[in-house]
C-alpha cells in the first residue's frame, strides 16, 4: 500500500536554533501512528510543519508528501484542498475556538467558505456529525463557554471531520481532560476512525496512551525520531534504550516500586543536541564510547526502526520485563 503521508529528512530552524533535526516517518491510509516525546522533542513542531502552520520566520527543509504531492509547494486552491483533507485537533479546545461565535457558526465555517455548501445544508451536516460524537443538535446554538472541556473537544473532533479529511492530526487532544473523559474521547476517535477510514497522527507525551490506541508508535527525542515500532511490541520489546527507559520510568498502577527507574538528567531539545553524537547517550544506561563519536542513523531492525548504534547488540535486553 502506498503511504498517505511521508515525512523525510524534515528539519525546522527557528532563528538560530534547529528544532527538528531530521524527522522521518510515514502513515498509511487509515493507519494510526502515535508520536510520543517529552518537552522539546519536537513532536508538536512536526505536526505544525505537516499542517503548514509553522511560526513566522521558521525555515523548513526536507519533504512532506501527502498523496504524493509536496505539501510545502501547495498554494491557493491546492492548499485549501489539502487543509480540507488534513484536519487538526489541539490540546486546548478553548484556545482554538472563537468564544463569541456559536458552535454551529464555528463548525460550518469551512464548509460554507471553502466547500461552497449552502448554510442550511452545512448545519444539517454539522448536526449529524455532532450526533456521531454524542452531542445533540441544540449545541449548535450554544456558545463555547456553555460547554465543558470534554464536550468542547468532542465539538472540535466533529468539526474537524466535517470536511471528510483523510488524515487527522491530533496534538495532545486529551491531555487537558479528566481520565474518564479521555477514555470517552479516545473511544469516539477510534470509532470514527473506523467508520471514516481516517488516518491519525496522534501526538502525546503519554507512551502508554499512544501504544494503547495506535497501530504503530514513533518516539521522538531532541528533534529526531529515535524509534518506530508496532505499538503491541513497544513495551515488551523496544528497539531503542530511550523508549525502554521511558516505559520503565512510569510508576506502575499495579504495584508500589521501591524506587522508580528514573532517567538521569533532563530531556534535551533539538537545538541543544550535539550534531555528531547520539543526543540521548549522556542519559543512557547502555552508552558506549562510540555513541559520543557519531550520530546514529534511523535503521531498520526486526520490523521496526531504531536510531541507536548498539540497537542490534541490545536486542532482547531492553524490554520492561528484561529489567533494563
Amino acid at each position: 500500500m502506498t503511504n498517505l503521508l511521508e515525512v523525510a529528512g524534515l528539519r525546522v530552524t527557528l532563528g538560530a536554533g534547529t528544532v527538528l533535526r531530521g524527522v522521518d516517518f510515514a502513515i498509511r491510509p487509515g493507519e494510526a501512528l502515535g508520536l510520543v516525546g517529552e518537552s522539546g522533542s519536537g513532536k508538536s513542531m512536526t505536526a505544525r510543519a505537516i499542517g503548514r502552520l509553522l511560526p513566522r520566520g521558521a525555515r523548513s527543509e526536507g519533504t512532506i508528501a501527502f498523496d504524493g504531492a509536496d505539501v510545502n509547494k501547495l498554494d491557493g486552491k491546492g492548499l485549501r484542498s489539502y487543509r480540507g483533507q488534513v484536519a487538526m485537533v489541539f490540546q486546548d479546545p478553548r484556545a482554538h475556538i472563537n468564544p463569541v461565535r456559536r458552535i454551529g457558526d464555528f463548525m460550518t465555517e469551512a464548509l460554507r467558505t471553502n466547500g461552497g455548501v449552502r448554510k442550511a445544508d452545512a448545519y444539517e451536516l454539522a448536526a449529524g456529525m455532532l450526533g456521531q460524537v454524542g452531542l445533540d443538535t441544540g449545541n449548535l446554538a450554544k456558545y463555547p463557554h456553555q460547554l465543558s472541556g470534554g464536550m468542547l473537544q468532542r465539538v472540535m473532533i466533529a468539526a474537524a471531520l466535517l470536511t471528510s479529511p483523510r488524515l487527522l492530526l491530533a496534538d495532545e487532544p486529551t491531555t487537558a481532560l479528566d481520565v474518564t473523559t479521555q477514555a470517552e474521547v479516545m473511544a469516539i476517535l477510534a470509532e470514527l476512525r473506523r467508520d471514516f477510514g481516517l488516518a491519525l497522527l496522534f501526538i502525546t507525551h503519554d507512551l502508554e496512551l499512544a501504544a494503547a490506541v495506535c497501530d504503530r508508535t514513533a518516539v521522538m527525542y531532541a528533534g529526531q525520531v529515535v524509534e518506530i515500532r508496532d505499538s503491541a511490541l513497544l513495551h515488551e520489546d523496544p528497539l531503542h534504550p530511550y523508549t525502554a527507559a521511558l516505559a520503565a520510568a512510569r510508576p506502575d498502577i499495579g504495584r508500589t516500586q521501591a524506587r522508580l527507574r528514573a532517567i538521569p538528567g533532563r530531556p534535551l531539545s533539538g537545538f541543544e543536541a550535539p550534531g555528531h553524537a547520539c543526543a540521548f547517550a549522556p542519559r543512557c544506561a547502555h552508552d558506549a564510547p562510540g555513541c559520543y563519536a557519531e550520530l546514529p542513523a534511523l535503521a531498520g531492525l526486526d520490523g521496526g526502526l531504531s536510531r541507536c548504534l548498539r540497537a542490534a547488540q541490545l536486542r532482547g535486553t531492553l524490554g520492561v520485563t528484561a529489567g533494563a
Partner: protein
Amino acid sequence: MPDVLAVESLRKEYGDLVAVDDVSFAIGDGESLAIVGESGSGKTTIARMIIGLERPTGGRISACGNDRSTPARSASKRRQRGREVQIVFQDPYTSLDPRHSAETAIDEVLRIHHGWQPERRQARVAELAGLVGLDDRQRAVPPRSLSGGQRQRVAIARALAAEPKILILDESVASLDVSIQAQVLNLLADIRDATGISYLLISHDLAVVRQLTEQVIVMQKGSVVERGPTGAVLDDPRHPYTRLLRESVPRPGWQPRRRISALPVGD
C-alpha cells in the same frame, strides 16, 4: 500513632453548589494519604481549606492537634500554621516569585519561620538545595532560567524549609515530563525516609498515587465514594466510580469504552 492531620465532616458551599460534602479523613504521623478524583470532585478545595485559602462552611480541620477551621488571628499563629502544613502546587511556573532565585526563596522562609542568623540560614539553604538536587548554578538563578522539574524542586525545598509535619502535594508532579517525574517521586520518597514527613497527595494519576501513598480516598462531586489502603482500592475497586477511573487508565490492549453513544441524525 497520633494523627498529624484530621479532617472531620468538612463541608464547603459556594452559593447553591456543595463543593465538599461531609468529608472526613485522618493522616497518622509519617503516613501518606491520597485524594483521588476528577475536576469538580472537590479535592483541591479541601487542600485550600486545609492551608487556609478557603474557609470551610462546616466541619473541623486540625493539624498537629491544633484547630485550623477558622482563620488565624495573628501573624504568629499564621506562622505556626505554616510550620505545620506546607503545600506544593501543580504549576511551578506560577507559584514561585519570578524575581527570586532558589536561594532567596528558601532563605526567606527560614528567616520568617526560624529567625536564624545569616550563617545558619546559608548552611540550611545549601542543605535543602542539596536534598532536592539543585546544583550551584540552579540555586543562584531566577525561575525563568530553570526547567519545570528544577522549579518544582525549588518549590519542594521552599516548602520543606518551614519544617512542616505535613506536605500537601496538589498535582505537584502532573505537569512534569515522565523522566523528570520519576526523579521527583524518588526524591519525595527519600525526603519522607529522611524526615518522617506526612504527604497529602492530591492527584488524578492512579499510578502516582500507588507509588507514593498507603491510604487513598476517592471523591466524586464533593463526596467520598470509597476509601481504604491504596493497594486494595486500586486492585479491587468496589465503587462503580472507582472502577470507572481504574478502567479509564490506558494500558496495553486497552479498549476505551464509549459511554455516550452516537445520536441519530436530526435528533
